[in-house]
Each structure stands twice: as C-alpha cells, then as structure tokens.
C-alpha cells in the first residue's frame, strides 16, 4: 500500500500540481543520484541521466499501483535506465597494472603479500580499484556485484530492484565473481616483481 502522505502527494501530481512534483523530486533525488552515481556509464553526464530517470518516473506515475514501496519502483526505473545506457557502451577497456595509481598499486601489493584483511585506511582505494575492475564487466554483472557485495543487499532486495529471479541472480553473481577473479589474476601477473 502507498503511505497516506505519499498517496496524497502522488494524487496531487496526477492533478498536475507543480509544488507536489517539486516535493517528490526533492524527496527522491538522493536515491536517484546515488543509483546513477553507482552505475554511471563513462562519458554520460550525471545530471542528464538523473533527468532521464525523473522524466520516466513522472511519465509512468499513473502506472504505479502502490503494491511495492515507491522507492523500490523508482530504483527499478533508475537501474533499468542506467543498464540501457550502459548497453550502449560497446567498449569496456580491461584494467592494466599501469592504469592503477601508486596508492592502488600499493593496495594490490598488500593484498597479494598478506592474507589479512586490508587496513581501514585502504577502504577508499579498494573501492576505486573495484570500480575500475567492474568497468570491464557487462552491465548486468556489474549491477549484481555492486548490489550484493558492495551494498550488502539481500537476494530478495536484488530481486526487487532488478526483477530477476533468485536463481538467475545467484548464477550471474557467480559468473561475475569468476570474471573479476580472472581480471585480478591478470593484474597480478602484470605486477612487476
């Protein structure tokens, strides 16, 4: 069911109330921006993609039945828009050792030389490395790794956002991890001894 306050807001938007549309935009903007930033295809303007997502939200608002929370419905629109944009990207350059910054190379060396968890000071750099590694994966693989392993979402959540079945999510996640392992292996082999 739609929350009562949200229901009233959506009804006002359907009645073409501009203030209500602005309120909804401001409420949903952080969620949409976060999703767009997570999946932002290269060479795509962040604002343009946010605008496209919001236009789809407003254009399809009549189809929102209220069976799922509005945030889930919006997330699905945002993720699908980003995936479609990513599909248009033909080239997914593989990450090379030389593409890594000094700090990233240091984290990779630490990763290979010790078996312990990485130091908290390396978290941001690790995130940058993972983002670069994900750039070489297909959009759907990228999405599933990001949702499951970086955002720590449950399989049910991923199902809600993507609309895929749970077995498909598991298979896709497994294959994506295999591909990431291969990329990591290749990077390690390029590492100067």
């Amino acid at each position, binding site marked *: 069911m739609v929350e009562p306050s949200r229901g009233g807001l959506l009804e006002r938007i359907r009645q073409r109330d501009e203030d209500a549309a602005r309120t909804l935009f401001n409420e949903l903007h952080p969620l949409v921006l976060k999703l767009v930033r997570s999946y932002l295809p290269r060479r795509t303007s962040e*604002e343009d993609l946010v*605008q496209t997502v919001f236009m789809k939200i407003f254009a399809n608002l009549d189809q929102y039945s209220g069976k799922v929370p509005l945030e889930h419905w919006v997330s699905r629109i945002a993720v699908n828009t980003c995936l479609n944009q990513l599909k248009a990207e033909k080239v997914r350059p593989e990450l090379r050792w030389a593409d890594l910054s000094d700090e990233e190379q240091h984290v990779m060396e630490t990763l*290979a030389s010790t078996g312990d968890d990485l130091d908290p000071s390396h*978290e941001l750099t*690790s995130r940058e490395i993972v983002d670069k590694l994900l750039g070489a994966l297909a959009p759907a693989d990228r999405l599933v790794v990001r949702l499951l*392993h970086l955002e*720590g979402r449950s399989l049910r959540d991923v199902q809600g956002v993507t609309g895929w079945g749970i077995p498909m999510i598991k298979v896709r996640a497994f294959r994506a991890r295999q591909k990431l*392992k291969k990329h*990591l292996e290749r990077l390690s082999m390029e590492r100067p001894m």
Partner: protein
Amino acid sequence: VKDTKHQLTRLLKSAASAPEPALEEPSLSLENRIIAQWRSALVSDELFEWPLLFFRRAFVCACGIVLIALAWSYHELSEPPPTHVAVAEYEMQLTFLP
C-alpha cells in the same frame, strides 16, 4: 586460484566498508529543467488527449457496426429464400412435366 579468490573477497570486503560519498542537494536548474519537461509533456498529452479519445471511440463504434452487419448478413444467408425456391420449382415443373 584459491589465493585470487581470497584476494577478491578481501578487496570486495574492504571496498564495501568504504564510506559513501556525501550526496549534494539538487541544483535548482536541474529541478526547473525537470519540472519544465514534465509540464511540457502534460501539455502535449492534453493536445493529443481529445483526438485520441475521439479515434478510440470511433474505432469501437466502427467495430460494433461491422459486427452487426456481419450478424445480419449471416442471418440473411442462413434463411432459405422462399421466393427463389418457388420460382425454381415452378420452372422445373414446366420443363419436365408433359
């Protein structure tokens, strides 16, 4: 392979712990652009609303008329035309009877 798997797990774990970058407020220009686009979409919807409604109703009416015409034709064809039969019988009698 096991080593790489372990490395990947640790890398993902560390990356997942990274703090999320702060999200800034939406710019007013973006908000205005989206609202303007929403309003222009509404205007174009209004523009096409009446013709669309008219053609939709006209199509439904046309389908109804076609169905009535088909039913009427079927009814007419399924009933034997008594006049034609009578004329044919009369002509046969004239031809074959002495």
